């Protein structure tokens, strides 16, 4: 069955810049693929790295993290802290065998709706090319080691 794979990507946005950029993309009617679903946080600094892990474990094929440009955070410097956490998380994800293109950080100011739409479009294609993450299917049932992609199985409660 050759249906085109549609990646499911979760995006975390900050209330002041990137969420407004997404709104701005809407106001400008700038079209982008519907594969991204956004969660609004007050600040990119609120982003607990576990959210990203939960998203991937929960079925997302990729996660997009966005926030205000460095130097322009509404809360002054919290996006720097988000950036720090993000780089550490990326290393960890690498070690877990998750391709780096699946988790991306993009800074977008409130005026950059069109640009955010372009970034989303690019990322959707990149993740599409990687195929589904299917994380629980990748890790063997007993939790040991890395096993090739398994077909999804129903697990009794």
């Amino acid at each position, binding site marked *: 069955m050759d249906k085109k794979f549609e990646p499911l990507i979760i995006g975390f946005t900050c209330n002041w810049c990137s969420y407004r950029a997404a709104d701005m993309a809407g106001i400008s009617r700038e079209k982008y693929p*519907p594969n991204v679903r956004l969660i609004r946080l007050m600040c990119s600094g609120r982003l607990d790295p576990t959210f990203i892990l939960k998203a991937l474990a929960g079925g997302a094929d990729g996660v997009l993290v966005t926030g205000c440009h460095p130097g322009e955070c509404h809360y002054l410097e919290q996006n720097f802290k988000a950036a720090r956490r993000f780089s550490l998380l990326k290393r960890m994800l690498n070690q877990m065998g998750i391709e780096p293109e699946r988790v991306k950080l993009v800074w977008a100011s409130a005026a950059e709706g069109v640009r955010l739409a372009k970034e989303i479009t690019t990322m959707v294609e990149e993740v599409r090319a990687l195929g589904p993450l299917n994380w629980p299917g990748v890790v063997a049932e007993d939790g040991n080691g890395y096993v090739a992609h398994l077909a999804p199985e129903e697990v009794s409660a």
Partner: protein
Amino acid sequence: MSKEKIGVYVCHCGTNISGTVDVEEVSKWAGENLEKDGVVVSRDYKFMCSSLGQELIEADIKEQGLTRVVVAACSPHLHEQTFRTAVKRADLNPYLCEMVSIREQVSWVHTDKKIATEKSKSVIAGGVKRVAFHEELEPLQVPINEATLVVGGGIAGIQAALEIADSGFPVYMVEREPSIGGHMAKFDKTFPTLDCAACILTPKMVSVGDHPHINMYTYSEVEKVDGYVGNFTVTIRKKARYVDTDVCTGCGICEEKCPQKVIDDIFEAGLGYRKAVYRPFPQAVPKYPVIDTDNCIYFQRGKCKACQIFCPTEPNSIDFEQQDEIIEITVGNIILATGYDLFDARRVPQYGYGRLANVFTSLEFERMCNAAGPTNGEVVLRDGVTTPEAVAIVHCVGSRDRNYNNYCSVICCMQSLKFAHLVKERTGAEVYNFYIDMRTPFKDYDEFYQKVLEEGAHFIRGRVAEITDAARMPGEEGKLIIQAEDTLIGKQRRIPVDMVVLSAGLESRADAKEVAHKFGISCSTDEWFIEKHPKLDPVATMTEGVFIAGACQGPKDIPASVAQGAAAAARVLSRIQSKELALEPVRASVIEEKCSGCRICNNLCPFNAIIFHEDRMVTEINPALCQGCGTCVAACPSEAITGTQFSNEQILAQLEGLLMLDVEGGLVSMLEPEMA
């Protein structure tokens, strides 16, 4: 089975949403598939934000005992407040209402209707799962200090200051130059009425200077801003004038006797001179002069002191030992009215500004026309004596140009028409205006254009390619030649003139970005300050308590600047009158029992809201200072810090909802058992 009773409301927004998303299907799906999450009623309606739409919600709350509400419509930035208020009217805590966007983030940006509908379902599922974890919250009341800070003493700042001060509340005005007045004080006449700029401005300036409720700090700059709305602590550096303002009478003898002449770059736009001890212009407010230490003979070489010698006051007003003064004030609101800078015409080398003597910028020409300016109001060439017989006025220099600034500077067409009129009036010379479009939109503006047309000014529609003195034919010797395509006749033209005036565009101030950062607001890509909403809220910013007015928000003419100054003042006055401001209760707080005293969070707060108690070895967060960013919440390894409205449970629940369906609407098969 959830114990909450959740109402879901899906808006059509006319056809804005329903044109792409099948709202009825979404509403039906929510009612059926989210029942186990607590949804007891699910409706769709054409305009949820209308009073009828709101009444739907209120009725359901009252009749069905709803405990939570989810509205799927436009952006929460638009109507979250509307729905919260509606919910409040039905006696339900407003923070138990969650709004999700299926317009800006779904119907307006996606084309595939089926997939957009599936996405809307997931988005609503996210909202429903999240809202179950919402708590009742009360907004924080913050007291508002009565005083206001106005930064910038141009026409917008002056208007704002006067409006607030006339209402009886104290205003601090900080102006960087030695006198208030801004750019308007430099102009000769203002369009379209041809009022003398100084005549209409100076009475206002004097009012500001004399006003009992305005504290004017000129020759000063804001160094630091701390605090938040209602309670800003501002540090001002009052630069040393080297003149004792308590004694000085403003007689001007020091200026007269000073032997050091300097080119005045600021007020005279480089076209005239001032002394090392100077007042920018005769009607300066305040009237006290200032010593420019970079050019003062005493400060550079230790000699002269003529100003001190000739100063008639007892004791002497000149004080060479004066130091900068640091002043701290507390204000409740801040209005930024810092104005614009003129586009540097030297960046367009083919126009010859700086190379060719008789090419002038608009500000230079204003000073030339001004009766108190370097030529006493006579329109003459750079030699100071020759009257031009032909003058070219070039529109859009540095504006509407991808090489420099892409935007239109708004005032240049009217200004160029004004120049055309003044040139005709004072010299009878031939006038050529080179324009792209004539932009004369407001009251009496187009009539002014028609008047100038009747006066016989020539208008050539074409962007000037080059201004050169390289004569090609006998008639061009000794002249400046404008080479432009006359697009209306489709021919290249070379027009010899004596003098060229470049209507240079308006740009944001060179330090706009630093100023924005200092006050906690942002700049757009062109470095104008960003307003809260470009159509509906042009004077507020995203930062509570900081407002913007005038050209610093974007190029505009004097009436618009005055209107914005007054608008900002009105906003501030309403805050002052209400004495308190309700702030969103998005705050972090520490669950003491869970806190292990690791202090990872301590250094993360830029607002100094996190305190560590050494005696109990636990951290506490000050709710008054906390701005609700949530960084500490994310950092705590013990999950000992909770953030209201953005708690871990809420966000993870929303995540679960978003991952309920895959892109095409099938169930996502990868749900971890514990997340269900």
